[in-house]
């Protein structure tokens, strides 16, 4: 059994809780003194750092939402100065405003450590060649995995996304042993390899996939493992927490949430009260050591449950079960978060189409296809097909720029899309996960 940080990973539960309490207490004291945002929030909730006397007192603290990050764009919640930051990542926002995450050197170190523990837990280390096929850039996936993989002394092949035939060639030529990407991209790689006459199972050294940034299922795991001859591991994280952070261990039964890094609660999204142990609810995370962008009781929006039992692998940290859904209408298309409100916001700036729309998501082959149906306005109608094609291309182009994901657009007749009173159902997700 391999451990990266055996002292933390095997620490008895009682000691972990003591450590968490100390970290929480110091976090709350620090933020009460140095963060306007948290100071005001705690005042409004009438809670003082002195009220935090044991770990369960975390429930006295206010929640934090994605909306708070948007309202405080770009950096008003940061508790580090720009000079202290070593990196920014930016994720697409829901209404045109993106979310900016800043990192101090310690933040990058903790993030890399978290991934290093996970990669070690699935048997990777020095001597492995890890192909990072997550996007590099503003998205956290590429650089996050890159630093984690370097940390354990593996050799990184930073292929990023795209140029899939070349990825397959390099995987073969450089004897890649593990790949990190979205599950749908791995399916695509597998299909491209087959077309090239390469059997990943027989013709490459690939033995593991670290797959995340979008939801997938046990069925997909079984299928990929059998087809590609690998072990497929899930990884969890969001840019607000740092990026992809928590992997499964070799048991493949839940993400280990390292107790020195994060404290996870499961709450009823309606009442905000904790659910019964083992029940499912909304995941709420407190990042215990984050410096630049602290997160206390952050409502991620993902639905799952937590297993507090010590894992058969010997690790004592709690495990989050597979993500079972969302409390909001967020979609994940090819690993990119897409909110229907982003689509609405973009359409409002295009006079040729109305504000009503319908999103249809399908999985064609391995990749997600997103179709947006929009109504052509009366004034924009032209008898010329080329004019109409132009309008459609323009809408596709604008949506692509706003969402960072390719979109097909279909022009439909005015008034033909369903109208909703109250909660609308603008998304038809046909993907069989």
């Amino acid at each position, binding site marked *: 059994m391999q451990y990266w940080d055996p002292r933390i990973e095997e620490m008895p539960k009682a000691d972990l809780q003591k450590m968490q309490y100390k970290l929480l207490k110091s976090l709350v004291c620090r933020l009460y003194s140095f963060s306007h945002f948290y100071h005001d929030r705690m005042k409004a909730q009438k809670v003082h750092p002195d009220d935090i006397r044991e770990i369960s007192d975390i429930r006295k603290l206010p929640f934090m939402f994605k909306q708070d990050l948007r309202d405080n764009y770009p950096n008003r919640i940061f508790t580090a100065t720009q000079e202290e930051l070593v990196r920014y990542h930016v994720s697409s926002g829901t209404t045109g405003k993106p979310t900016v995450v800043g990192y101090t050197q310690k933040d990058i170190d903790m993030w890399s450590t978290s991934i290093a523990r996970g990669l070690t837990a699935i048997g990777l280390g020095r001597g492995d060649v890890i192909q990072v096929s997550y996007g590099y850039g503003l998205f956290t996936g590429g650089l996050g995995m890159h630093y984690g993989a370097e940390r354990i002394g593996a050799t990184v092949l930073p292929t990023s996304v795209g140029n899939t035939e070349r990825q397959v060639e390099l995987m073969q030529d450089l004897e890649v042993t593990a790949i990190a990407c979205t599950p749908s991209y791995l399916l695509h790689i597998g299909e491209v390899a087959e077309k090239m006459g390469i059997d990943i199972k027989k013709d490459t050294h690939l033995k593991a996939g670290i797959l995340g940034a979008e939801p997938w299922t046990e069925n997909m795991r079984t299928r990929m493992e059998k087809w590609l001859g690998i072990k497929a591991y899930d990884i969890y994280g969001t840019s607000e927490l740092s990026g992809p952070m928590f992997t499964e261990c070799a048991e493949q039964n839940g993400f280990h949430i390292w107790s020195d890094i994060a404290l996870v609660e499961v709450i009823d999204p309606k009442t905000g009260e904790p659910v019964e142990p083992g029940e499912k609810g909304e995941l709420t995370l407190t990042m215990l050591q984050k410096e630049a962008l602290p997160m206390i009781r952050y409502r991620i929006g993902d639905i799952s449950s937590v297993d507090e039992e010590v894992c058969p692998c010997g690790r004592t940290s709690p495990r989050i079960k597979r993500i079972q859904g969302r409390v909001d209408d967020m979609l994940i298309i090819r690993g990119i978060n897409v909110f229907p409100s982003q689509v609405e916001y973009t359409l409002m700036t295009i006079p040729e189409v109305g504000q009503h729309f319908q999103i249809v998501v399908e999985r064609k082959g391995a990749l997600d296809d997103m179709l947006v149906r929009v109504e*052509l306005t*009366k004034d924009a*109608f032209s*008898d*010329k*097909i080329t004019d*109409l094609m132009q309008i459609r291309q323009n809408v596709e182009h604008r949506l692509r720029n706003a969402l960072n994901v390719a979109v097909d657009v279909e*022009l439909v*007749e*005015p008034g033909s899309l369903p109208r909703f009173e109250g909660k609308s159902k603008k998304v038809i997700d046909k993907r069989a996960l």
Partner: protein
Amino acid sequence: MDTKKYVIKQISIFSENRPGRLASVAHALGEEKINILAFSIAEANGFGVIRALVDHPEKAHKKLSSMGYNVAFTDVIAVQMKDHPGGLYEIAKVLGDAGINIEYSYAYSGKKAAVLILRVDQVEDAIGKILSSGATLLEHTVFH
């Protein structure tokens, strides 16, 4: 020269490319006792434009608009075709030589002989050139 009498008001209807759309348009026109004299469908990926010459274009426009359709008027001209080989060539050559572009066209069997409906980028010029070539244009009173 009065070219106006040769300008024919065509109605164009935006339609999704799915079963039943043409039937819906045709049914509505039939209910209003509007006669369709010529029509064509142009299709692109996922949508199409139905173009028609009808005996009561204003009434058709009103009816279809009230049903929520996107409807527009477009000026077209109608050439009486000679029923012999090379007939189309003569017309196309006249326009091509004059630098007039045909955006689209369709044909229907007129009462005497075939009629070619043309949508061109320069309507007035096209009317002049076609008439001076000796060909016959139908007046809009033939339709409405």
